[in-house]
């Protein structure tokens, strides 16, 4: 688990982080979003022990990152927004260097290299100079350097910037594979639709303050005591709107162009019961769907509300 408490970081005449606190559970992918200059990169650098916060603590797998940055690095991988790879070294040589640097036992290094190459789809490029790689391949090599020691935590700052759509989709799949292997990821990106694909937590930061830290379920659906449903009826939507308005689990009702819009209080059981009741009473249901806020909607709602 990553635990951050009351983190403060200051630049000249600018408070980059202002008392940020949150916790990230193991095996999760968290999206860190916020406007430019919100403090995302500074927060990530503090988490990685690359800069020393003015105040506050960062604990990673029980290690105080501020007091013992080098120890923490053995459990951590970090891909920065502007990263570099050695152009005069082959892909395999780069990975071997980082495996050695992270003190992976010598006898395990060949296996780790092969696993990492396979995971990132770089096996065929193992002996290529990194200067001969495409932008997406270099990105994957940089991720490989960060994960070759199998860290528990991986922090990625704008990992998809500059990648083509195919490479972005592949990157998202890679993150899900890493999470499935038990890794905890924190990903910063401006491309919210892309974060929708894999993030299960949302951290919103603005002007150095953490506006929201929440868990997302499914694809960006926030945990909430109520849920919004769209029920498409073949006819009489207005009539059915009046009828369901009095039902006890229904909090609000609307109707638009044949679509009955309900706000339901409760969980899956109440949702199932509502559908069963509608059909049993003869409602002409064509389609029945949960209306989800996208991560983008949620972000705009939070940032817009605070700005």
């Amino acid at each position, binding site marked *: 688990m990553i635990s951050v408490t009351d983190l403060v970081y*200051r*630049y*000249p*005449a600018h408070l980059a982080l202002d008392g940020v606190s949150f916790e990230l559970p193991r095996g999760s992918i968290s999206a860190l979003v916020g406007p430019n200059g919100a403090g995302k990169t500074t927060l990530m650098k503090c988490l*990685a*022990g*690359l*800069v*020393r916060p*003015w*105040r506050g603590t960062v604990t990673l797998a029980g290690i105080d990152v501020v007091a013992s*940055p*080098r*120890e923490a*690095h*053995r459990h*951590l*991988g*970090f891909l*920065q927004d*502007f*990263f*570099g*790879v*050695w*152009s*005069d*070294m082959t892909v395999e*040589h780069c990975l071997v*260097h*980082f495996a*050695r*640097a*992270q*003190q992976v036992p010598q006898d395990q290094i060949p296996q780790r290299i092969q696993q990492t190459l396979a995971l990132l789809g770089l096996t065929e490029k193992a002996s290529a100079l990194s200067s001969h790689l495409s932008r997406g391949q270099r990105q994957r090599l*940089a991720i490989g*350097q*960060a994960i070759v020691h199998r860290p528990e935590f991986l922090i990625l700052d704008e990992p998809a910037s500059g990648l083509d759509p195919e490479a972005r989709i592949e990157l998202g799949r890679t993150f899900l594979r890493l999470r499935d292997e038990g890794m905890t990821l924190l990903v910063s990106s401006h491309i919210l639709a892309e974060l929708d694909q894999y993030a299960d937590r949302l951290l919103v930061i603005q002007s150095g303050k953490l506006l929201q830290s929440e868990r997302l379920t499914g694809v960006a659906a926030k945990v909430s005591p109520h849920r919004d449903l769209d029920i498409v009826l073949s006819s009489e939507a207005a009539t059915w709107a009046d009828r369901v308005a009095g039902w006890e689990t229904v909090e609000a009702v609307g109707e638009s162009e044949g679509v009955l819009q309900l706000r339901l209080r409760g969980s899956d059981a109440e949702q199932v019961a509502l559908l069963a009741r509608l059909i049993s009473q003869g409602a002409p249901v064509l389609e029945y769907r949960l209306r989800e806020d996208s991560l983008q909607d949620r972000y705009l709602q939070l940032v817009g509300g605070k700005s």
Partner: protein
Amino acid sequence: MNLRRLFWDNPELRRNLSLELTAGRLLWTPAFLLVAVGLCFLPDQPVKDLVQIAQWVVVGLWMVGGMVWGGLRAAQSVRSERTERTWDSQRLTAMSAGEFAVGKVFGATAHSLYLQVVLGCFWAVLSFMRFQLDPSETTLRAAVIVPTTLVVGSIALYSLMVAQSFLETDPARSAKSTLFSFGVPLVSAIYLASHFWSDLLIERQGWRAVVGDSKLVSWWGVSLPGPELQLASLLLFLPWAWFGLWRALRRDLQHADFPWAWPAFLVFTGAYVQGFSTAFPGESSRVVPLCMIPLAVLGWGFLLTENIDPMGLRRLVDASGSWRERLRLGIPFSWVTMPLVAAASFVAAGVWWLGDWSDASEFWSLLAGVGLIALRDLILFTWISCRVPLARQGLSRMALLVGIHVFLPVLTMLVSVKFHLVWPYPQDIDEIDGPQMVLVNLGSLGAQALLAWAVLGPSLWRRIREV
């Protein structure tokens, strides 16, 4: 310390060696050097002369290939990683500061070190040839002293160059500029200083009585010939070069600082210089403040060149009220050095004054005056660092230095006013003696220091609080 991890299993060293020592370089370097040295034997001259010429060529190649080229490689080693944005990835590994230091100093310069090994072999052969022709002790000593001095000097230079990469605040500054403006002058200074002392102590007519005709220099009671003293001096300071690099790396890797490192270095340097005072038996009281020279040079040197970041000062102020945390963050060198200069000056002045009032009436006040000047200049130059835009700081510092240490004294001298009122140096006024002299000699300097702190101190404090 795990020596195996530090050298044999050092990932950074292995990475650099694989890049630097390519098969082509391993073959072509000795071939090229062999041709260069071989050409020296073509002229039709006595063999003894040809061997001597070849030895000079080897030394020249050693200086250029070993020191200048290697120094450049060392200066570029971290700089290029920062430019190519690979350094932060390296910082995120589990490699220690020691591993990085060895990896950079002996890895990034591996080609130059290989060149030095080859040149060392040539030197050994040439020295053997020369010894056959001229079997003197001088030949034998030169065979050992010259290459050892060059190797030790190179490694000290490499260490300083890598360390300087971490202290460099100007990203546009080239490695060449760093090498020629910092590294070479510093290593040369150590060498030339020891050369100066040995030369001075041996050759000066008045002091020959002290050292006799032995041409040996006395240093803390140990008598050494000049070249050996110079080599010993480099060897004494080499661990400090390594320590400086290790410390710079540790700071870059976000480790705790060593607050005692800088004062310890100053004490060591002072003790080194003070060692030469033992060449003056019976007159040691005259040269007691010899150790003040490096202290003052380093103190004002850093005061003039160090970029004190107001954010760093703010961080020290805000360090949760903990002195341990402040020491861990690292106090600016100037703020360690200059108070040390002042403290040492006052102590030395007190010792002098108590020891022999009449004989030392001039000197003790000079020492105390240096202390007051140090306190005054500390606040003046810190204020410039924090208040003047970075681009104009160099010029401002130089203007202030010339103004208060050259222009003002010359002006007061030209107009023949009572010097002690404006003169930034302590005065010797023969007609005044006793406690009155304390006021006259040091009153002006004390007032200047007090005024500087009273006027600039609050302004500096506001600046620190507002960043």
